[in-house]
Each structure stands twice: as C-alpha cells, then as structure tokens.
C-alpha cells in the first residue's frame, strides 16, 4: 500500500535526521526546513565527506554494500517517478522493520515461555514502589496509577535532563553515561540471562568458559554499538539489548502497573514528539539547527546504523546515545528519544570520501533506511511478552497482540509517508496492542476454547 519513505531528494537531506518518524527529504517538508538549510546542508555534506574516514561511523563496511536501492533518483526526475520509487522501496523498508521487531518479540516470548525466572515475582524496581499485593481492587488500581505517575515523571525528568545536556553540549557527560549503561546492559544483564537459561535447561558451565563467553559478547557488543561494526551484527546486538531490557521490565513491573505504564507511555510519546514544547521535538530541532544527526546510537536503522559523524566532538556524542547509566533510566532514554522512527539519508556519507561535493544527486541515490528508536522495540516487546506471560489464553493472545503491533507499525509508516515529519511510533501500535490484548483475553478466548472443545471451525 501507500506507505513509504520518500527518497531524499533535496539538499537539506543530510542534516535532517530526526529521531522521529520522518521522511526527511522532500521540499514540502514542514517546520524544520528553511532555505538556509539547503546551503548548510551542502556544507555539512562536504564536511561529512571529508571526515568520513575519521568519523566514528561504525558502519563503514556496511555502507558500501548497503545503501543502494538501485535506481538513481535525480532532482530533475518527475515527482511521480520519485514517488513510485518511494512506494516500491518504502515497502521494502517496512519489511525491513518488521523483521527486527518480530525477532525481538520472538526472543522475548521464547524466553518468557521457557525460562521461569522472568515470570516469577521477585520484587520490584524502585521506580514502582507501590506494591500490588493489596486485597482490594480499588487499592490495587490506585497503586498502579501511582506507580505509573512515578515512572513517567522519572522518564520525563531524564529526557529533559538529556535534552539539556545536549543543548549545552555536554557531550562528554552523555558519552560517559551511555558507555556505562551499555556496559551494564551488555555484561550484567547478559550474565543474569545466561545464568537463568542455563539453569532452565540444566546445562552445566564452568566459570572460565562463562567468563570467556560473556567477555567476548560484551566487548564485541560495545564496539559494534558505539563504534564501527558490520551492520547486521550491530542490528543483532541492538535487538538483543532491547530484548534484555524488555525482559527486565516484564519481570520487575507489577501486572496492572505494566499495562497502565504502557498506555501512559504512548500518550507521553505522542505529546513529547508532537507538541511544540515537547522535549523530543526540541531535541530534534536542536539537532537540526546544528546540522547533526540525532542520537544515532539509540536508534535502530534498517539501512544504516550509524549516521556519519560531523565534527569530531559531535560524532563522539552522537555515538553515545545508547544508554544511560542506570538500566532503568536507560529505558527511559531509549524510549524517550528514540520513540520515533526516522527515515534518513545519512547513508550517503559513507561511501563518500572521494566523491566530489557537487554530486548531490548521486548522493541521494543511496537508500535511506527507516529508523526506529530502540525504546519502541522495547515497549513492543514488553507488550507481547506480558501477553505471553500473563494471558491465560496463551498463544492466541500473544499472536493477536503481535499482529496488532505490526499493523500499528504499518499505519505509522503510512502516516510518515503522508506527513513527512517526525512521528511517534508508539501510540498507534500500543493502542492496537492493548485493545487486542484485553479483548482477545476476555472475549475471544472463551469463544475459541468452546469451539475447540467441540471441534468446530469457523
């Protein structure tokens, strides 16, 4: 259908990386564009090319293979042809996003179903201090709402803090924060996960082997995510990290709180991205002004993981956006800024160094990938994982939520193609997912169970 990312065809392209779902290119693109961008973009591009070699883009390898969608798109080409290409290749990008989201969900559901650890209640995070073990329904509801309020306010505070840091160019701080968070995620959580999986399958493993495995996994992960690495490995690591984070959430968030939090996060996402004073929108605008790509580290890109760094210090910061120090905060960060999708052109820069600056047209040929924030991955997986963990109808509910989320993603991409600006990726999918979860669990399950017991087919 008609949902795709437009090709970038304008000069402004390179600087328009927005974390939100955006089809950056076309001239009719709204608010953030102005004429000055064009020249600035040209320069930025030149800059990028020169620095491509020394930049921190991890995916230089990937870039070469990656980019091309094949057909050169020239500025001068009729808009129709561009749109048609958009349609054709946009569909490809939708599929390219489906695969990682599906993989993440599969990992989460498989773990939930097999490893009992993640469904046992062993305490709660400090961000959700109110317990849900209360006898009355009203009290429980109240506690979950309070938990949600606390969680959301923590998220808001962290996001605003991040935006402020970014605004005042405290890149080193962000840098360090992210490194610490990803360290913790890659080593500690993986260790716990591996321990639990081994326990479940009753496999013995000695400490030296364990150390070796975890060390290698973590070290390669750090390099891939924060520096350079093959695109697919990077994508795989991001998926694994999202899955691990989602599992932590599923384990430590009490039941009702989890659902209320999911709902609240979608609303927050909607507001943060679309309201003029929303932190995420300010983030996007700041990055626009500076002609810098926004937080590549916190974003999953189907085409190119890393946008090329501009100036050295900037690239460093750019690289960082992976995680914040605290795991939970991490999520926050991840969710906040990357809760949107982005269609980007940054790919261009990579094979670039030798190209003449003037050939902007050629640059536009390279395919842009769709970008989806890691927070989105995490929350989708939390929804599906919770459905798998707690629904008594088991697989039907999980499947229904899965389909609902994917359809929401499709619709969001469609809106992206229509509106061509940053969009939040959470609201539609989460809404569909929640609706389908509750309705399938309560309505469809008894129906299907009765049908199955009589072996009737509809």
């Amino acid at each position, binding site marked *: *259908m*008609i949902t795709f990312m437009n090709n970038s065809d304008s000069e402004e392209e390179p600087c328009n990386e927005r974390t939100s779902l955006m089809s950056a290119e076309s001239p009719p693109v709204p608010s953030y564009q102005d004429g000055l961008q064009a020249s600035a973009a040209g320069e930025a591009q030149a800059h990028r090319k020169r620095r491509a070699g020394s930049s921190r883009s991890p995916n230089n390898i990937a870039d070469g293979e990656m980019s091309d969608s094949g057909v050169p798109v020239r500025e001068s080409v*009729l808009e*129709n*042809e561009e*749109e*048609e290409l958009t*349609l*054709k290749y946009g569909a490809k990008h939708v599929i390219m996003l489906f695969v990682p989201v599906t993989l993440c969900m599969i990992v989460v559901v498989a773990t939930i179903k097999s490893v009992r650890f993640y469904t046992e209640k062993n305490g709660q995070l400090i961000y959700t201090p109110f317990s849900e073990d209360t006898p009355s329904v009203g009290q429980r509801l109240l506690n979950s709402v309070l938990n949600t309020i606390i969680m959301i306010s923590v998220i808001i505070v962290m996001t605003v803090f991040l935006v402020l840091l970014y605004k005042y160019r405290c890149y080193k701080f962000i840098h360090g924060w992210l490194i610490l968070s990803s360290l913790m995620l890659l080593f500690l959580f993986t260790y716990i996960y591996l321990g639990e999986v081994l326990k479940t399958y009753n496999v013995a493993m000695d400490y030296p082997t364990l150390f070796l495995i975890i060390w290698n996994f973590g070290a390669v992960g750090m390099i891939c995510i924060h520096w350079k690495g093959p695109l697919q490995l990077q994508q795989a690591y991001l998926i694994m990290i999202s899955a691990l984070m989602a599992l932590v959430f599923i384990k430590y968030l009490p039941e009702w709180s989890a659902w209320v939090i999911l709902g609240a996060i979608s609303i927050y996402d909607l507001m943060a991205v679309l309201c003029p004073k929303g932190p995420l929108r300010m983030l996007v605008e700041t990055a626009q002004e500076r002609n810098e790509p926004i937080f590549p580290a916190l974003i999953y890109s189907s085409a190119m993981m890393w946008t090329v760094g501009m100036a050295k210090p900037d690239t460093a910061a750019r690289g960082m956006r992976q995680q914040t120090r605290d795991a939970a905060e991490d999520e926050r960060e991840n969710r906040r800024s990357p809760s949107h999708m982005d269609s980007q052109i940054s790919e261009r820069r990579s094979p670039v160094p030798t190209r003449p600056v003037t050939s902007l047209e050629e640059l536009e040929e390279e395919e842009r990938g769709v970008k989806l924030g890691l927070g989105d991955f995490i929350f989708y997986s939390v929804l599906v994982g919770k459905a798998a963990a707690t629904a008594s*109808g*088991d*697989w*039907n509910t999980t*499947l*229904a939520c899965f*389909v*609902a989320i994917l*359809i929401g993603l499709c619709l969001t991409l469609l809106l992206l193609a229509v509106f061509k600006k940053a969009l939040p990726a959470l609201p539609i999918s989460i809404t569909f997912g929640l609706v*389908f979860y509750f*309705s*399938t669990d*309560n*309505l*469809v399950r*008894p*129906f*299907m169970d*009765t*049908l*199955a017991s*009589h*072996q*009737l*087919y*509809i």
Partner: protein
Amino acid sequence: AFFWLVSLLLSSLIWFIAVKASDPRDEPLQKGLLIFGVMFSVLLQEAFRFLYYKLLRKAIEGLVALSEDGCSPISIQQMAYVAGVGFGLMSGAFSMINLLADALGPGTVGIHGDSQLYFLTSAFMTMVLIFLHTFWGILFFHGCEHQRWWEIMAVVVMHLAVSGSTFCNPLYVGSLVPSYLLMAAAAAWAYLLSGGSAHNLRRFLLCKS
C-alpha cells in the same frame, strides 16, 4: 490477517454477550448459541473480506495513479491471493496454536472418551481451511472485480457449508470428506479463474517450457 482478527473479535464479542445474557445451565440453548455464534462469525468474516477488497481496490487505484505507465506494481489477483493466504493463516494459527502447545506437554488424547484422532483431524481440518481461505480469496475478489455476485454468494455458501459440516465432529467423515471435496472444487475453480487451464497444467506437469 488483521482484518480476520478484527472480524473474529467482533463475532466473539457478540457471542460473549449472548452467552452472558443467557442461562449457562441450559445445554441446548448454549449449543444453539454456539451454532449461532459460528454462523455469525462466518458471515462477519466474509463481510470483512469484502471490506478488505474495498480497501485494496482503493490502494490499487492510488498505485496506478502514481505510477508512470499506468499499471500498478501489484495486480489485484496477487492481492487476492495474498488476502486469502492472510485470512487462512490467521484462521489456521488461531485454531491450531493452542493445540500445538498442548501437544508438547504430557497427556493422553481422548482420555475421557473423546476421539483419539483429535489432533490428527484438527490438523487436517486446519489445513483444509487454510487452503480454502486462499481459494475463497481469489474467487471472492474475482467476483467483486467482475461484478459477479453469484461467485461471492457461492463463496459465502461454501464457507457456511464447511463450518456447518464441522458440527458433525467427531463424526469425521461428515466434516473432513465434504471439506476436502469442496476444497478440490474451489481449487479447480480458482485455478481456472486465474488463467490456468488443463493445457497449462499438462505443460507444467510434463515440465515443458
């Protein structure tokens, strides 16, 4: 798949309301409600198939308008096939997946006196339904395209017949055999509608180029 899911949702909503509003101890009533639920669900599925057709039609018009040579990159027949497959997969998945999960665990089939072939027949029935949905998709869309309402009615009637035949379960002869026959008929019909013929088939089977 999404459309099928929504139709399932709505039909189970109706059934649920009906059940809650009625007396749970009244066996024949429950059975009657179940039958009503099944039929209603079938009709709703076909209605949603029609809605999906409308949506795809609009999409194709959009694609055609956008393309430079006036044809869309994907034809309505392909869309019909995909729609049918989507419906079939969703329907099959929902029918089978809990069974499969249970089949992994310890247990005895039919320990309370039910048929021991439960799993097997469920598998076959699901398979035939998936195929049927695919063929019905093609037939349905073809009927909508060419304004042949009798084709659409035939699809609806076939669907009702297949669902109805499952009421014979566990007398599997009554449900599986007619369903497979219907499937063969639908397959042949869909094949002919898609441009196949006996000649094509022979060439294919004999591997002629």
